[in-house]
């Protein structure tokens, strides 16, 4: 019996997380997760900033599903104010979400292949992902935090040439997703490392309240998109469900979802309504008192926001529950009984995003330490640099 710490800094993990593993020979008998290494205090920051400023902070929560966070937050604010967003804006918003899902799934497929050691596939997926990122850059202005979403709709309109490029991209992804599916189902090396590894049975998945592709790979047909927010109440699509619940099923779900996303995108650009794209709002307008919840299907699963307003320009509470936090317990659970060498594959199997999971809190010190105002802190910083 031995105890092995894995992480927070470990070549197998792309972001900091710590597993305390108990081993019996080569087998893991118990696992404990320690998170919080990228904790930044965003929920506390949300109390200090006005609700319009937080639109741009919300997308910094996660570098991969940035517009899901932004969209979920904006959707919640819209529910508080009771405004009906512009239809064209809503369609562009949905388009951004689906492009983001494609880039996130491709990124994840690449990371999984990299963990297994199939570097060629890693290069292929990331090459394809680059094309999605190019479109997102044209849509929002930046590759990662594209700020494509704003109050009442979207921030930038689509041009005709961009629509043509998006259609070409969708066709390309449709073709590539077939290739990935084929690879996932037939490649011997990939099957040897993923089939029967990290299996989460349906009953266990229900008990652990997992969300998103992890739940769908275990045979639970849940998808927030089916509740019909934004343009999803019109867009036709099927929820992809697999039964096995292992890493292979997870990969298959995501590869098939690439296809679903590409089809939704094609439907959206074909049915794009004309009109305004967003609603103008005064910079320091107050929110009405109240509380609400907002949910969207981020690439990793159900993203949950709880917003509470006390009638001022700032929100009183922004509670964020990210999909990785809901899924991370499933990793600790499924690790038991597997080889130590399978740990990175299983951990990567839920598509973990530590930046999302940790978020929250700037320190407002009590007791010994002094609280500094912004100007005091700037002065302190200038003096510190002049000294050294």
């Amino acid at each position, binding site marked *: 019996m031995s105890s092995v710490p894995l992480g927070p800094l470990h070549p197998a993990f792309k972001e900091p997380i710590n597993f305390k593993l108990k081993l019996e020979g080569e087998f893991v008998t118990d696992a404990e997760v320690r998170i919080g290494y990228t904790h930044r205090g965003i929920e506390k920051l949300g109390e200090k900033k006005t609700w319009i400023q937080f639109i741009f902070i919300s997308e910094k929560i996660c570098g991969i599903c940035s517009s899901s966070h932004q969209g979920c937050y904006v959707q919640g604010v819209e529910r508080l104010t009771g405004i009906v967003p512009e239809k064209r804006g809503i369609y562009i918003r949905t388009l951004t979400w689906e492009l983001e899902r494609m880039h996130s799934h491709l990124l994840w497929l690449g990371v999984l292949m990299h963990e297994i050691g199939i570097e060629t596939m890693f290069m292929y997926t990331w090459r394809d992902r680059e094309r999605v990122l190019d479109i997102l850059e044209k849509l929002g202005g930046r590759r990662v935090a594209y700020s494509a979403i704003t109050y009442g709709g979207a921030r930038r309109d689509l041009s005709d040439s961009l629509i043509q490029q998006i259609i070409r991209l969708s066709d390309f992804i449709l073709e590539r997703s077939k290739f990935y599916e084929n690879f996932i189902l037939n490649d011997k090396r990939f099957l040897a490392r993923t089939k029967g590894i990290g299996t989460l049975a349906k009953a266990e998945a229900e008990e652990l309240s997992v969300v998103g592709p992890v739940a769908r790979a275990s045979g639970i047909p849940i998808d927030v998109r089916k509740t019909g927010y934004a343009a999803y109440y019109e867009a036709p699509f099927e929820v992809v469900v697999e039964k096995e619940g292992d890493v292979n099923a997870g990969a298959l779900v995501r590869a098939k979802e690439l296809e679903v996303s590409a089809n939704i995108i094609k439907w959206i650009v074909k049915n794009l309504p004309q009109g305004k794209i967003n609603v103008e709002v005064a910079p320091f307008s107050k929110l009405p008192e109240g509380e609400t919840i907002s949910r969207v299907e981020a690439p990793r699963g159900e993203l949950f926001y709880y917003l509470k307003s006390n009638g001022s320009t700032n929100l009183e*509470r922004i509670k964020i529950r990210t999909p990785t936090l809901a899924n991370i317990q499933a990793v600790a659970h499924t690790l038991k009984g597997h080889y130590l060498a399978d740990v990175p594959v299983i951990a990567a199997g839920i598509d973990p995003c530590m930046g999302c999971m940790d978020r929250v809190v700037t320190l407002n010190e009590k007791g010994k330490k002094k609280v500094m105002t912004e100007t005091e802190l700037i002065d302190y910083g200038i003096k510190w640099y002049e000294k050294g």
Partner: protein
Amino acid sequence: MNVEEALIRNGFSFTKDKNGNLWLDVKSEDVTKVLTELKTIGLNFLSCVSGVDCLDKGFCLIYHLLSLEDYNIVVNVKTYIGREDPRISSVSSIFKVAELYEREVFDLLGIKFIGHPNLKRILLPEDVPEDYHPLRKM
């Protein structure tokens, strides 16, 4: 399943907001009992536990529940706890995922969950002073 009908049949009173989500107010002593009952009628998915510092009203805890069969409607169970030594019984025996969510609430707001198997800080480092909880407002 129809969540609203199931709740009415089991004698729960609730309010419905304009987005179709349901809000229940319960006393803090009854949370475990109510959540057990809700789980047996089909609300078998705990989506989130939110903690809010409501100043004079004390701390507010909200349990967001869903049914896997009807993924549309969120049932929000809301309860208030007094400011002095805030305590509430843990629901981690009913929903396993609550273990993590309750640790987060404990870490940021300092609400103690009685019967929690592993109640320690989750997001902040372990060497942060014991009485320090960043989301408290006073």
